[in-house]
């Protein structure tokens, strides 16, 4: 199978100045991540806020250039040597954002919103553009009468359909979904998740699906990668990772997603919060919250090593 997306040992740091004259400090947002997604498949990326998953997404869409390493879509690097975006339109990735309210310009009617990506070089000309807009509305299940309406006239779920339609306008093959349903109501979430699945079947899309909840990511993905503080701690086929997690962090995520009532003995596995990436712990970054921590965890960084044929984990425990 051919890989559509290849992320090769990507690292991203931001220079942060703590005070006006203070010395610059490197914040490591993403540390040496490698991932690949075969054509037509979905990779789910799970992590809490601060795990670096959005930074990674931004490097895939080209919004951020990696400090080192590179991102390839269909073998083509997303950024050129100077860090400028090299892939646009159908060859690049498009993104579906989390918040359907702020991702649509409130002063543009739907037809204009959907046509906008088509006005960027190589331009799609007028009659064809109109046709494409109608096609997009059909694809995401909105009536054509939506063309003249403004974003505020739609519910959250319908807005997210508009956002998806706009992302599809240039016929990209890779779609980055950055928590596309977490701002929506439960009953609408399932509509959008189903829509994304249908579109994938219909158009042969490849998804990088980002979420902080394991339920929806597990439902959508063929493969899952779990991120913590800029690193991948576990990776493997979705059903295997969810059924039999190796890394204590994945185990904790799963147990906090499982709704066992507290009065029936439901517990909280993880204490504390994700440490600041400005001051990451030595050794294993998860050790400050890990229930299974031992001495070696503070000394050596555990490498992401194969655990079985298709699975990897970064933990000192064997």
């Amino acid at each position, binding site marked *: 199978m051919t890989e559509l997306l290849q992320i090769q040992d990507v690292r991203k740091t931001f220079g942060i100045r703590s005070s006006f004259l203070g010395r610059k400090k490197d914040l490591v947002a993403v540390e040496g991540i490698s991932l690949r997604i075969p054509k037509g498949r979905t990779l789910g990326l799970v992590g809490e806020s601060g795990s670096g998953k959005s930074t990674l997404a931004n490097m895939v869409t080209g919004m951020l250039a990696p400090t080192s390493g590179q991102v390839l879509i269909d073998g083509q690097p997303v950024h050129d040597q100077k860090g400028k975006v090299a892939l646009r339109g159908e060859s690049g990735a498009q993104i579906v954002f989390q918040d359907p309210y702020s991702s649509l310009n409130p002063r543009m009617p739907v037809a204009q919103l959907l046509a906008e990506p088509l006005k960027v070089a190589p331009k799609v000309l007028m009659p064809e553009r109109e046709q494409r807009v109608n096609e997009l509305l059909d694809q995401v299940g909105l009536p054509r009468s939506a063309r003249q309406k403004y974003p505020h006239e739609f519910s959250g779920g319908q807005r997210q359909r508009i956002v998806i339609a706009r992302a599809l306008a240039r016929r990209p093959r890779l779609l980055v979904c950055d928590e596309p349903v977490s701002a929506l109501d439960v009953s609408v979430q399932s509509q959008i998740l189903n829509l994304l699945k249908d579109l994938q079947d219909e158009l042969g899309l490849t998804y990088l699906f980002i979420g902080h909840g394991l339920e929806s990511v597990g439902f959508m993905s063929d493969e899952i990668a779990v991120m913590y503080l800029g690193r991948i701690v576990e990776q493997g086929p979705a*059903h295997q990772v969810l059924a039999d997690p190796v890394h204590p962090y994945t185990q904790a995520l799963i147990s906090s997603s499982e709704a066992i009532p507290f*009065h029936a003995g439901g517990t909280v596995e993880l204490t504390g919060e994700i440490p600041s990436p400005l001051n990451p712990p030595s050794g294993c970054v998860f050790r400050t919250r890990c229930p299974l921590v031992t001495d070696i965890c503070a000394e050596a960084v555990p490498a992401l090593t194969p655990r079985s044929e298709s699975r990897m984990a970064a933990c000192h425990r064997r």
Partner: protein
Amino acid sequence: MSEPLLKIQNLQVSATRSSAKLPVVDGASLSIERGERVALVGESGSGKSVTCFSAMGLLPESLQVTDGSIRYQGSELTALGAEKLRRLRGPEIAMIYQEPLTSLNPLLTIGAQLKEAAGRAKAGRREILEMLDRVGFADPPRILRQRPHELSGGMRQRVMIAMALVGRPKLLLADEPTTALDVTIQSQVLKLMYDLSYDLDTAVLIVSHDLSVVRKLADTVHVMYAGQVVESGPVKEVLATPRHPYTQALLDSAPHMGDTRDRLESIPGIVPTPDQWDQGCRFRSRCPLATEQCEQRPPKVEEDDRASMCWHIDRLVARQQEAAV
């Protein structure tokens, strides 16, 4: 005393817009016993938050209680003046909100804000430090000197909980308290609320759209749809064998751990807006079981401690039994 701590009966809250009265909550009833944890679930637009806010007497100016009663320990809240209501807040009823950042004043230290909350409840520094310790801060005196921006989202929500509970209120209202937080922090905060409610015998009314939050924390659940409570009962039973098609649909549409389905059930269409509400069942346009009968006001069917408003409970039950086989 057999009177429940809070009893909301047939509550109607309306938006008054240029002489027209549009109900937002339309005949909601629920009651909370001392120390009980009750959840209100529903989608946005269901009226769940408004119901919660009216128990606090904190409705925005555009909304008014137009019918029904809210009784707190036997006294009618809708009849109380603003000043008396204000005095109830804090020592008797406290509230925490969804967004812990905007709920705290960015310019004041945590200590100053806690003192303000404690002052009304006549709690001193000792109680404040004790409460901060209880909500899980390792070094309470240091937290007192910090300001909201120095804390993470989870820590801020802990501070909010400490502020709400420092006066040992009998009722804690929580409006989507964990929605803005990460999964692992969510369960920390919920566990904290559960433990405190248990230890201090505080009743909790939690508003959420998330069934897993409800399952973890609550004893009793009321499911709201389009301004009405369509189903209520013990959480365990309601979520295992719903007696309303809407509850069933909510359960089916959420992906769960180890989901092997290829598609999720989804509820077609969207929640009807108040101007589309009528006497009949409001879920009928989206309901797989709907018949012509549903155009008439659905009966309230009560059985032991469960209740629901539906014409077709028998068919729903039959379906569940079929699916179980």
